[in-house]
């Protein structure tokens, strides 16, 4: 069995176990959420030994080169020394300055960072509460704005989202990141953009849309936002206004049930692929519900989009408390 040392302490690890599982069992409170390599909450740094196979998937090259790995993906096969402090040191502080409703169950959370943060519109940050609870959220604001804006869906029983909703204005959190590949590439200025997402998957799409416009994007931009019912849509007026003032922008709110004016009824993927049978030469952005994102990613690829032109963030939530993964 491999020997594992974390911050100088020896930690028992069973064959096939992930670093995250081993640390939690040993009482080391490593932040985590999705346990599936999507949220990057569980970052640790390898200080001696080789990063285990597949433990750096999706990490920024700069982080990977420094030996950072995702604890939930890393299954040590050889002796390893890791540090949790290095990851903590890579975070900055932020103060919640506003929580305002955007719809029935989505709030806009604005956070003032303690120091300027360099990010691309549409990337995500990991927000860490002082008790160690970690969740990732896409940045809906643009670089240069004074605050970081997030669209947070308030889930029943959701540990972080309910806390946000109860308006802890003035509370401090730690912020780690940015991460993620869901951002606009100015080199694509003439390409058609298809932005499709469900629920708060709109957050990164909103950011990408505005970033593209700021870069003077010339190709068509088609934003499709899916929700269960009209109450689940938000920023409708703002998006209609953007589409109204930019001839190359179109906006299609889609709902599964309960049609209202100017809203398409149907599953988001059917609407998207009904409209686009050929996505060759398009940039495609897909965000929100993980199952739908995976499905649309595959369909976009089969419809001719290059893998490198498909930018997707699956909003993987934490497994239900008490359910081991």
């Amino acid at each position, binding site marked *: 069995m491999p020997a594992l040392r974390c911050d100088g302490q020896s930690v028992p690890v069973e064959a096939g176990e992930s670093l995250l599982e081993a640390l939690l069992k040993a009482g080391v409170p490593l932040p985590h959420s999705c346990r599936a390599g999507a949220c990057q909450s569980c970052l640790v740094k390898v200080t001696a030994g080789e990063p285990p196979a597949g433990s750096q*998937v*999706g990490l920024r090259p700069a982080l990977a080169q420094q030996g950072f790995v995702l604890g939930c993906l890393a299954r040590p096969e050889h002796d390893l020394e890791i540090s949790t402090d290095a990851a903590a040191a890579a975070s900055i502080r932020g103060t919640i300055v506003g929580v305002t409703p955007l719809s029935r169950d989505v709030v806009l959370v604005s956070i003032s960072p303690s120091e300027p943060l360099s990010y691309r519109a549409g990337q995500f940050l990991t927000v860490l509460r002082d008790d160690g609870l970690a969740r990732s959220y896409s940045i809906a604001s643009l670089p240069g704005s004074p605050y970081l804006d997030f669209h947070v869906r308030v889930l029943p029983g959701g540990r972080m989202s309910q806390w946000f909703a109860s308006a802890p204005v003035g509370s401090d959190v730690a912020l780690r990141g940015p991460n993620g590949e869901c951002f606009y590439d100015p080199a694509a200025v003439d390409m058609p953009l298809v932005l499709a997402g469900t629920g708060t998957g709109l957050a990164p799409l909103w950011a990408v849309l505005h970033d593209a416009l700021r870069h003077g994007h010339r190709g068509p931009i088609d934003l499709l936002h899916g929700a269960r019912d009209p109450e689940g849509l938000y920023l409708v007026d703002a998006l209609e206004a953007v589409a109204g003032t930019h001839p190359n922008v179109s906006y299609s709110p889609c709902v599964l049930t309960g049609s209202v004016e100017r809203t398409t009824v149907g599953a988001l993927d059917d609407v998207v692929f009904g409209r686009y049978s050929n996505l060759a030469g398009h940039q495609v952005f897909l965000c929100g519900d993980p199952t739908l994102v995976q499905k649309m990613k*595959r369909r976009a*690829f*089969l419809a001719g989009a*290059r*893998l*490198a032109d498909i930018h997707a963030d699956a909003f993987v939530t934490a497994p239900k408390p008490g359910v081991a993964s």
Partner: protein
Amino acid sequence: MALFDELGGAAAVDKAVDIFYRRMLADDRVARFFEGVDMDKQAAKQKAFLTMVMGGPHNYTGKDMRTGHAGLVSKGLNDTHVDVVIEHLGAVLKELGATDAQIGQVAALANSVRNDVLSR
């Protein structure tokens, strides 16, 4: 010149991988073997495959090919599937401008590990 360089090297692999992987997913005869949850990881493996059969640098041994495909063999992988893969490989290379002689060399490389891939 070595076959891999003749075919355009790593840049050609980059070009071929999307086309090849899309053909695999779109072909009902083999699609089920490629239904990986994570498409980016799957694409990286397709790239390893293409590099290897195009004569590029790799560290795979016959044993790796056995262990790598053992799970697929237990799901029914057989000669017909290898033929399908080689058929698509030829079509992709043709699309990218390879000659019939070069395609023949690539098919021979693929066939040289057929028994390992099929755990025989």
